[in-house]
């Protein structure tokens, strides 16, 4: 499909790509490498090439130093609630923008696109004031609330649904006597499923890796994974075996998710791009 008339790529292309990917993986390997040795290894003149046998011992020290299980649970909670909510509201609104005609749809859509460019991170001060007033600071709900809708979610679903659902199909459902809602559920939702999966994964990952807002509202005793890593780094700043073992542990969940769903990730990024 993507073949060029020039023919199949040669060794040079594969070689350069391999070099790039090895370079990409190297820092991750370094993290595991140092994390699997004792803390003195970093002071050696030449770093080791192969992993040592101390990873589990270091991991144990991570669990002893910070509430890592709690952090994992919190991150899982925050990210999946955010992802589910973004997909839900994004699909509803995205469908309306893609397929339904209504007064004000164009300016409202422009508004959505413009706000995508506005860094919502800049609203942290008022968000914090509100959370403090409600007494939510310190709980995971404070970390969840600002993530429950994104303009990107709406735009992404709209772009997908415009092509994925033919207008004739909606028209046919209407002629058959389906109400708007029924048309949405029986015609649009099945077609939207692949994009919903991609948006879910994407939002999950973005929320999992988020740092600034959780740092503001969550205390050391009730952290997300990123906050726990931050604690590890600021508390034991010389012990890289401990810190990098923690970093490796923190990266494993997303790595597993990525290996399982990498195809969707790639498709999602490339899909969003063509039309974005």
């Amino acid at each position, binding site marked *: 499909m*993507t073949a*060029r*008339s*020039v023919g*199949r790529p040669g060794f040079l*292309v*594969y070689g350069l*790509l391999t070099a790039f*990917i090895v370079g990409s993986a190297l*820092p*991750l390997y*370094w*993290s595991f490498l140092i994390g699997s040795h004792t803390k003195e290894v970093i002071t050696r003149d030449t*770093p080791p090439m192969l992993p040592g046998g101390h990873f589990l011992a270091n991991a144990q020290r991570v669990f002893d130093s910070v509430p890592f299980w709690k952090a994992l649970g919190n991150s899982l909670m925050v990210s999946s609630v955010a992802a589910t909510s973004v997909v839900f*509201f*994004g699909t*509803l*609104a995205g*469908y*309306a923008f893609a397929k*339904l005609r*209504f007064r004000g749809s164009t300016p*409202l859509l422009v508004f959505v696109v413009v*706000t995508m*460019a506005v860094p*919502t*991170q*800049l*609203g*942290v*001060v008022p*968000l914090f*004031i509100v959370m403090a007033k409600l007494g939510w600071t310190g709980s995971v709900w404070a970390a969840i609330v*600002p993530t*429950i*809708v994104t*303009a990107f979610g709406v735009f992404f679903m709209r772009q997908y649904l415009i092509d994925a659902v033919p207008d004739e199909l909606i028209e046919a459902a209407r*002629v058959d*006597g*389906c*109400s708007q809602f029924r048309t949405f559920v029986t015609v649009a939702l099945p077609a939207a499923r692949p994009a919903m999966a991609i948006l879910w994964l994407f939002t999950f990952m973005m929320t999992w890796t988020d*740092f*600034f807002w959780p740092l*503001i509202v969550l205390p050391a005793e009730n952290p997300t994974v*990123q906050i726990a*890593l931050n604690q590890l780094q*600021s508390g034991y*700043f010389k012990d*890289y075996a401990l*810190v*990098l073992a923690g*970093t490796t542990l*923190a990266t494993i969940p997303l790595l597993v998710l990525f290996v399982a769903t*990498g195809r969707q*990730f*790639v498709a999602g*990024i*490339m899909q969003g*791009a063509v039309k*974005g």
Partner: protein
Amino acid sequence: MTGDAAPDEGAASPVATPPEPPVVRRSGARAASPWRERLSRWDVRYSPYVYISPFFLLFLVVGMFPLVYTAVVSVYDWSLIGGKGEFVGLQNYRDVLENPYFVKSAVNTVSIFVLSSGPQILIALALAGLLDNALRGATLWRMGVLLPFVVAPVAVGIIFGSLFGDRYGLINEALNWVGLPSVSWHTDRLASHLAIATMVNWRWTGYNALILLAAMQAVPRDLYDASAIDGASRFKQFTRITVPSIRPTVIFVVITSTIGGLQIFAEPRMFDSTLAQNGGSDRQFSTMTMLVYDFGWHLRDLGRASATAWLLFLLIIVIALLNYVLSRRFGALAHLTRRRR
């Protein structure tokens, strides 16, 4: 499907006269049908708003209100503990602008951004060009270049903080090994910016390459066939056909990386291995977002934190516009030279 087929049809085409119900079985059905018809028309007219309003209501609360209210907080004396104080006008802005760390952080932010965005776009273009071949196992290669993207910025900052360690880092050991002197990655200002820019490049180049690749695959293939007949080399094809054709996507990538890049926070914060974590002993790699955090949650001054946030917003707008104009100019130039040949 159900009995209300006819009224629905009428609603779909409002010009048509309201049709009679097809079969009237009971006398009650006749009375119900105008009501049903009206219901169906409402359904068509108002349900779009029902679908979009949950999003907009929530977005107003968690997205727009905070943004606007930041401006309000920024003109008050507002403490993290004591809450709202007196109205002070633009005093917070004056204080922030006069703070010696403000200019330093602004310069650092832009410097790190420039060091990361330029090389990133070029490498991403080249990488996309490599991926835009009939590769065996194309998806696996694409996943491979995306690998760093799943590593959280906090983890990236820690890992590279160790790689760029001043004393025992791998980079310095490699430099020594080839006979070069060690670099003070954490204390030297420019070196620290380079190290942080490397983190950004590492995490985002593959991601941007995939976006560019998607655009490249939409370039009509017969353009390449024609130029191949004219004897153009692959490299020439790439610079004369591919890159000009995907110009809008390049601009898109530049603008999004401007918005994201200028807000950089986790990487420089984790790169700092001192306990203060505010961008080095002399704030040599402190950024604007770090300053927002510093004002708000170290100095407990939400007024100045808000003022800093607005100034950062302004900086982002100015640089994004500048980038937009520049990349358009650049693209237009490429077009001109292409036409002339």
